[in-house]
């Protein structure tokens, strides 16, 4: 299981446009991707409602995980989106 831990830098947190971009990118991957806030319960990264309900704010740390072929590439992309200011 590959994972990335990143600090969310966007002013609006993982809401609004960053959340939409994050979910759309995750949804394109042909493997399961999860995201968790801090050490919390991981949720499906392809679900906008699940991602919104994490209520990730600027400065929060998220852990993104995926397993299988191409996991590293998709995690790199998602980490970039989550950490973009």
């Amino acid at each position, binding site marked *: 299981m590959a994972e990335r831990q990143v600090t969310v830098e966007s002013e609006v947190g993982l809401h*609004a446009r960053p959340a939409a971009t994050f979910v759309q990118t995750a949804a394109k991957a042909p493997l399961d991707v999860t995201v968790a806030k*801090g050490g919390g319960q991981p949720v499906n990264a392809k*679900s*906008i*409602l*699940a991602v*919104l309900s994490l209520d990730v*704010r600027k*400065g929060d740390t998220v852990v993104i995980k995926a397993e299988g072929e191409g996991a590293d590439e998709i995690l790199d992309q998602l980490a970039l989106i989550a950490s973009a200011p």
Partner: protein
Amino acid sequence: MTTLTGVGVSPGVGFGPGYVLAYETPVPAPGARHGGDAGAERDRATRALEQVAADLEERGVRAGGEAQDILGAQALMARDPGLAAGVAGLIDAGKSAARAVYEAFGGYREMLVDAGGYLGERAADLDDVRDRAIAVIEGLPVPGLPSRAARPYVLIARDLAPADTALLSRDVVAAFVTEQGGPTSHTAILARAMGVPAVVACPGATSIAPGTPVLVDGVSGLVRPAPSEEEVATARNAASARDAVLAAATGPGMTADGHAVPLLANIGGPRDVDGALEHGAEGVGLYRTEFLFLDRTTAPSGEEQEAAYLEVLDAFPGGRVVVRTLDAGADKPLAFLPPQGEEPNPALGQRGLRLLRAHPEILSTQLAALARAAARSSAKLQVMAPMVATAEETAWYVATCKEAGLPSAGVMIEIPAAALRAADLAEEADFFSLGTNDLAQYAFAADRQVGALTALQDAWQPALLDLVALAVAGAVEHGKTCGVCGEAAGDPVLACVLTGLGVTSLSMAPPALPAVRAALSRHTREQCLLAARAAMAGTSPQEARAAARSHLPGLAGLAL
């Protein structure tokens, strides 16, 4: 019909026939079940959700801009895999497609509403997706709005979905009025983007009969059904005169005879900086830092705090930024501190400076972060404590700030005891900042949250003006400054009175700055002084206001 009042969220005056949007998608009955073919029923639900998603996306592409983002996010909701799984599970358990959609959305809806704030306002977006999907499944017409009109109409609704409003334009809509929604609701955001006046949180609006001419003031929040021609003309003239005058008043705050009164912004985080600069704030008079601390399970690190402070300081090079150290308590609890236990009167409980004295590590981390940020910026950083009652508390706070390397430490005057003994406090503090909202709450024993007591919260109450005068006198005795950072500072008339009382700076919500700047620039310091004396001689808020206005002739040109 009487005038209704809501919250003005997009400025301007709009007038036109009321178009009342009163549709509600019927709730599918709790017992609604399908005929037995779960697979076919699941297909119906999936197709309906996909149709809604595609429709929302298509509307987004046509609308472009901010609306496209909002509608795109709604399309993602319609295509949410977690939601789809929930719907499928409910259909497998025998529920009809419509009922399954209703229940599956319900779970997420509750979560958003419980979270409140920004997420709470997203519940309306989710409801709209749900109602559209149910309408498709049930074969009901998906309600739309006239996208053309002979005369622009005033759109009135319980709440508006962005899918409804995104394709409208100024040629079609004269104003928006909704019963629900807040300043960050999509109606507010899109109305501002369109440049159309809007009033939200206006109870009773949908009881206006369709077709009734409606006058809407997006600044005052007043909604007047069936106004006279004269009222419409007056409101329109006032709005255009106000716009012209406000646009003409620029530069730092000062009276007509050149007495400087710095005009500062109240902000709740770095995201408010743009608005402050846009309205010409000379600095920040109240930087509320709660946003860093509330709603989180661990305390924010010093580094995170430093970044948030520096971001604001950097926006005002050479200017003044007054940061209020953490103002939390029983009504704004911190999840990372041990629970405080029930307080019967949270407003009178262990909050503000009282809480920080019980947890000095929180204050020392915050002050250290502030000192580091100040060292990296050219802005002049000042810090102040909330909820200070005594000179002893003041001395403790100022000493703690000085130890942390912060050269200017003041206190907020929001407890009557602090105003009554202002000279004692001024001996210790570097400056005062009057928080008129809490000062009124404590002086009148009137809870700010209780709507029935609003009259006692009126900043024109002569007793409140007395407390302001006492605080100023105490500050003057020791050569210290005394600003105001409550709602009172944003009232252009009261701003002149406060200046007359000797207040040295005014800090307010950024949109209030232009009107205050214009009002000050049209009066001399002497006129402000006379207005202040006249106001204090009144025995009621109404008398005080009327007496002050009689000394401020320049207000007429501002249509205030």
